């Protein structure tokens, strides 16, 4: 559920934050959940590994068997160039991938983008290149060292291995000990990861034929419901599922004491939605808001 909806209903999510733009407009932000961030990281690592695999396949297809070059010793200039390429590619895969994508206009790696996340400056100001560099340098201790540690069987090294494990675990678990899910790199750089989903503009609701003459609702019938119910009704109408329409129409007619003919549900609900929204919005203009049916 979006931050705005929760905010309006007065039941703020633990991850909702308010950001005030220079225009003085309060803009709700939602801090990315730890699960989504872990998922994004895993996706990114998968992309990196896939990229490395593809890179080596391409190298193989080019006809230069790197292993042969290593064994024969007498590397020609082309083979030498290829080895340099491999070293630089592996280096860039480790340090360059995150840096490159987070410096882009979306402020997100492909994994973050897929999960609707982006990096932002915590103080609401600009996200600068230095911040992105700082948060990604610390990533080395937070992600890659633990990863190599696990892959390399570092846990077999007795006391030193255990110490290293605890030490790395502090970094890995860091996001679980603060409310903004900041990792150590975020703290150093002054950044955080927030949700950045794009929404599509849907059809206006009151373009349906005006039926206010066929269905006329009185003050008492419209004051049964509040904004929350109106927005639930909006969702139901937009989804347009016959059974859901049927159920909701029955619930409403039951509540206001109407009887409805078969097949008129959508018409009735559209008319009721328009009337209820007009009623609630006119209340809003006079500063009266009704959050839900209980208020």
């Amino acid at each position, binding site marked *: 559920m*979006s*931050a*705005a*909806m929760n905010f309006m209903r007065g039941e703020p999510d633990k991850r909702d934050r308010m950001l005030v*733009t*220079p*225009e003085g*407009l309060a*803009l*709700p932000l939602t801090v990315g959940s730890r699960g989504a961030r872990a998922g994004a990281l895993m996706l990114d690592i998968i992309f990196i590994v896939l990229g490395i695999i593809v890179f080596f396949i391409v190298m193989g297809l080019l006809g230069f068997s790197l292993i042969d070059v290593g064994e024969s010793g007498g*590397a020609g200039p082309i083979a*030498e160039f290829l080895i*340099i390429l491999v070293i*630089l590619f592996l280096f860039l895969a480790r340090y360059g991938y995150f840096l490159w994508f987070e410096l*882009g*206009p*979306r*402020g997100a790696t492909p994994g973050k983008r897929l999960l609707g996340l*982006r990096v932002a400056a*915590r*103080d609401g*100001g*600009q*996200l600068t*290149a*230095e*911040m992105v*560099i*700082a948060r990604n*340098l*610390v*990533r*080395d*201790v937070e992600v890659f060292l633990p990863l190599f540690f696990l892959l390399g069987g570092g846990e077999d090294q007795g006391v030193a291995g255990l110490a290293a494990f605890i030490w790395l675990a502090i970094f890995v678990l860091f996001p679980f000990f603060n409310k903004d899910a900041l990792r*150590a790199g975020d*703290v*150093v*750089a*002054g950044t955080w990861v927030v949700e*950045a989903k*794009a*929404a*599509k*503009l*849907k059809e*206006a609701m*009151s*373009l349906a034929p*005006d039926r206010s003459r066929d269905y006329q609702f009185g003050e008492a019938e419209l004051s049964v419901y509040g904004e929350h119910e*109106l*927005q639930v009704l*909006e969702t139901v109408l*937009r989804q347009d599922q016959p059974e859901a329409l049927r159920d909701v129409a029955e619930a409403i007619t039951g509540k206001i004491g109407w009887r409805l003919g078969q097949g008129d549900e959508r018409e009735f609900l559209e008319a009721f939605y*328009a009337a209820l*929204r*007009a009623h*609630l*919005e006119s209340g*809003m*203009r006079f500063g009266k808001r009704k959050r839900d049916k209980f208020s």
Partner: protein
Amino acid sequence: MALSLFRKNEIEPPADIEAASLRSDKFRLEREVDWQRLDQIVTALEKGRPKRISDDDLLNLPVLYRKTASSLAVARETSLDASTLDYLEALVRRAWFQIYGPRVGFFGWLKRFFLGGWSGAIRAIWLDICIAFAVMVAGTIVGWLLVARDQEWFYALVPGGMAGGRVPGAPREVLEETLGHQGGADGLGVFAASLFSNNTGVAIMAFALGFAFGIPTLLLLVYNMALLGAMLWVFDDAGLGTEFAAWLSVHGTTELGAIMLAGAAGMHVGRTMAFPGDRSILSAMQSAGVRAAQVMAGCTIMLIVAGLLEGYARQLVDGTGARFAIGGTMLVLWTLYFLAVRSPKEREA
């Protein structure tokens, strides 16, 4: 994403505005062309293709942004259309990220970085650099003294693979040979690239470990320098002290300088964490982190230079004097650059 390929460029004007029965829907229909125009501009910016935006749109961007922001403010107070509110909120947020996003591109940043950003950041952490330098000198002396007292320490400090014949009591000829050059330039590029990759990893770790109050950084510096001290003793014992120093200085002044700066940057962050001063710990760490990041970006460049010097110059140039000359020149150049380059006065604060 795929849909935008087929999306028409023109924005369709909304259906008959008068047909809408609700006032808040009329409000929306009257303004949605502007919103969608902003949406298109923001999408193009997000995709990194600002060239697709027409001049007209670009000139209107600030106006469109303010209009949409004020639409959102009005809609919050007058409309109960949840999907429109969600759309506007997402749109204003995206536009805000683009408009208040980084204003300098990569090359602009690079220019600012070389013309003062880097050297300024280095001058700002002078105290940490002094500490790092002292620690490195101490580490070298410790390594030297340990091996001088008991040669078994050498094997404890230096990993077997790295020593490669350079052990205490090795014949002078063997040691001399390791300092000589290996002939032609074949394979030196690979050597330089792998040195760069390896050294940068060490430098980044020295920085990243600074997060824990800088203590692991100090340990890393001491260990690496003790290794150097031990090696120095071995060569000095064989009467090759000066030759070894010359051999090392070719790239060492640059490489050890970079590692010193990386350690200092890590320590700067760690020290700020321990002593944030009169600011909150988070904001103090942020400014320290951003300053340290500039130093670190510079370290990468220094390590590229060091890798090239180590891979090519050291292997191709023979003779103690010439090697000292290269190393000394690099040291002077770096020092002058860091001390002399001041950032030009910022036109916009």
